């Protein structure tokens, strides 16, 4: 772990992008998330860590209302994005998701060409006026995902034919292409080898320049490497939330310490 680098990276106070207050999530009778308060800052990488089943992925999916697709899931409390409650009746989840993009645990490129995968979002949201503009969006997105050089000669090849790491970067490019303001990443490296993981992590660090990134991860090294803020979840509760350097070097809660030192998990 590169503790030195971490402490160097001093974080100035930034604008709050997402403000979650007293969030409760129920799966049927199961109370999965209890009273979670979190502030997600703009242009910051926030990591959610915690043992399996602690609710970190569930909470992440609340941030762009992906839990709406699960029938038995019920969300209470307030999640405010840029001053607007995203669970308000007037908010269209479709528009919300265009603003809050998501990258999933397993690379899930559509069975289309690489080009069409990236162009999917811009096309449905009408982000380009003509083919040239669309080409440009596709190229810049692929460049941002550090994939352009590897695929520029075969944009018509199927996205499913790429390697696992390339597929995941394609999915990131796809999410970036819709120009979201927040990017949610649900264990984006869990299906990748160390080299691909390093590439994706580097990418996350770059994305921080323009987006607010929230990443769920099982790897504490990864959280330490890429994030500025860390939230530790345990059994549906948010146990501790703060500067990554502080969480990893000087946690306040004994449970956090137990987890990061490997005693509970």
């Amino acid at each position, binding site marked *: 772990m590169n503790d030195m680098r971490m402490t160097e990276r001093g974080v100035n106070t930034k604008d709050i992008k997402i403000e979650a207050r007293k969030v409760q999530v129920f799966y049927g009778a199961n109370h999965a998330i209890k009273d979670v308060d979190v502030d997600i800052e703009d242009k910051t990488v926030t990591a959610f860590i915690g043992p399996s089943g602690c609710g970190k992925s569930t909470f992440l999916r609340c941030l762009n209302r992906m839990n709406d*697709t699960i029938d038995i899931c019920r969300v209470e409390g307030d999640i405010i994005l840029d001053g607007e409650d995203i669970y308000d009746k007037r908010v269209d989840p479709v528009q919300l*998701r265009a603003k809050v993009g998501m990258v*999933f645990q397993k690379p899930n*490129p*559509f*069975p289309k060409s690489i080009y069409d995968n990236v162009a999917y979002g811009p096309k*449905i949201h009408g982000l380009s006026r003509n083919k040239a503009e669309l080409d440009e969006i596709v190229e810049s997105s692929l460049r941002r995902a550090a994939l352009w050089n590897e695929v520029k000669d075969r944009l018509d090849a199927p996205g499913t034919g790429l390697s696992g790491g390339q597929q995941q970067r394609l999915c990131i490019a796809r999410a970036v292409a819709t120009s979201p303001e927040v990017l949610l990443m649900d264990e984006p490296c869990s299906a990748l080898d160390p080299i691909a993981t390093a590439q994706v992590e580097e990418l996350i660090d770059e994305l921080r320049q323009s987006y607010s990134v929230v990443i769920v991860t099982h790897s504490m090294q990864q959280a330490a490497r890429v994030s500025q803020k860390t939230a530790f979840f345990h059994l549906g509760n948010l146990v501790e939330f703060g500067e990554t350097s502080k969480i990893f070097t000087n946690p306040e809660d004994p449970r956090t310490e137990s987890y990061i030192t490997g005693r509970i998990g």
Partner: protein
Amino acid sequence: MGAVLTFPLVLLIVTALAVAGYILGRGRAARIAAAAPRTLHSRPNQHGWHVVFATAIPALIFMMVWAFGSGVVSNIYVGSAIPEDLVDVQVPFQQREGLTEREIEIREEVLRTQFVASVKGLAVAIDGYIANGNATEADIERWRADLAPLQDRLRADGQVVGASITQGMLTVAQDLRAFNRAIATIGPLAALALALIGFGLSLRAISAEFRARIAVERWVLGFLVFASTMAILTTIAILSAITVPSITFFREYGLFNFLFGMAWAPAGDVVGIPEGRDGAYESVLGFLPLIWGTLYISLVALLVAVPLGLLAAVYLSEFASKWVRAWVKPALEILAGVPTIVYGIFALITIGPFLQAVVGATVMPNTVSVMTAGVVMGMMLVPFVSSLSDDVINAVPQAMRDGSLGLGATQAETVTKVILPAALPGIVGAVVLAASRAIGETMIVVLAAGALSNVQGLEPNPFGAVVTVTTRIVAVLTGEGSGFDSIDVLAVFALAFTLFFITLGLNLVAQRMVAKYREQYD
């Protein structure tokens, strides 16, 4: 007189032997075990089962092979029992004029085929006559001098006699009967002998060292293999049953005349090759008008079934609430179980008159038509298409939906831009399977498509009556009085044969598409 020992009787004896074998074998093994504990390799009941299998299986297999093979063998026997110079199988001298060697050869072959069929029919008739207690073997020989009364007697007894009996026919038929009797006597005896040998050998084999468990496992494995190949064997048997008459037909009538003939007009319903004809058949047996009717109706059916079925599947798998899905999906699947004859009746008494009332009697002279049959067949196929499409749509991974929704796509965009393209090969497979069902569908078209026995050319009017391949097969094979040797009936086998290959081809295509689709997500 029939053989004393018959297969059912042998079956009974073999069963008894097997039961006895189990008890004896088990007892024997148990005694060995009691005398020398822990030395027995296999458990006593495994020894018992080994005796059962060794007794019953070889005998059963032998009986099956014998029963199936004796028909084939006796066919070959009849062929060889016909004297070369028999007048029945010669083209009469006065008809040979103007015919080439080849034509004469073909005709003689046809005559032989017909003669064989008549001989087999006659042999069955005489067997039946004697079995009914009307005469003895000696009587038959006595009546040989005058054949007309024999024929009348047989007919009076209700036996089917196609052609008029000739001396040659009776001689060969009697030969055949003797041969069949021999087969019927030897078969059961041999089966019984096999069972006894297996019984004795397996009982003797029982010892502490004998690995009965392994032997039994092998028998069981054999059973499993047998069960799994049975359906394939049946298909091969069906195919071989229709292949021979079809090939006879193709050779007689000409493959091209059949496949590209523009009219279907069988000349008569009784005996196919008219006497004294001069080269050409009176029956005109072209495939095109029939396959046209079949494909036309299938097209209409698919135009109805594919959009409705697909939309139903999309609704059920992507939009319907759990509650709706729990009710509608089973309801749709129940529809798939409605017998096709019921759909046919519905077409005939409801849809047909309704369509006629809508489009008018000038366009639609009859209530039976392409549209009547096609629309109802389409309704029949809706649950079929929707159920298969529902399966392939559900097989598209949830990750695809999440990925699309996560990018801010609406549900409709997700369905049309991601799910349907991903499921497309599977859906196409479902459609091809539906098409192959439509082509082979019989009852609806029999009732609702039209029942003309003669068709000229291809009917373009969707509200006109057509004739399909299956309708003709049903009409000819259920019609009375036609022997299996007439050209019209042979043509029907050719129809079935061709239809078999069309649907087989479609199913192969469908299977390949579905398989290709599966590859994508495994």
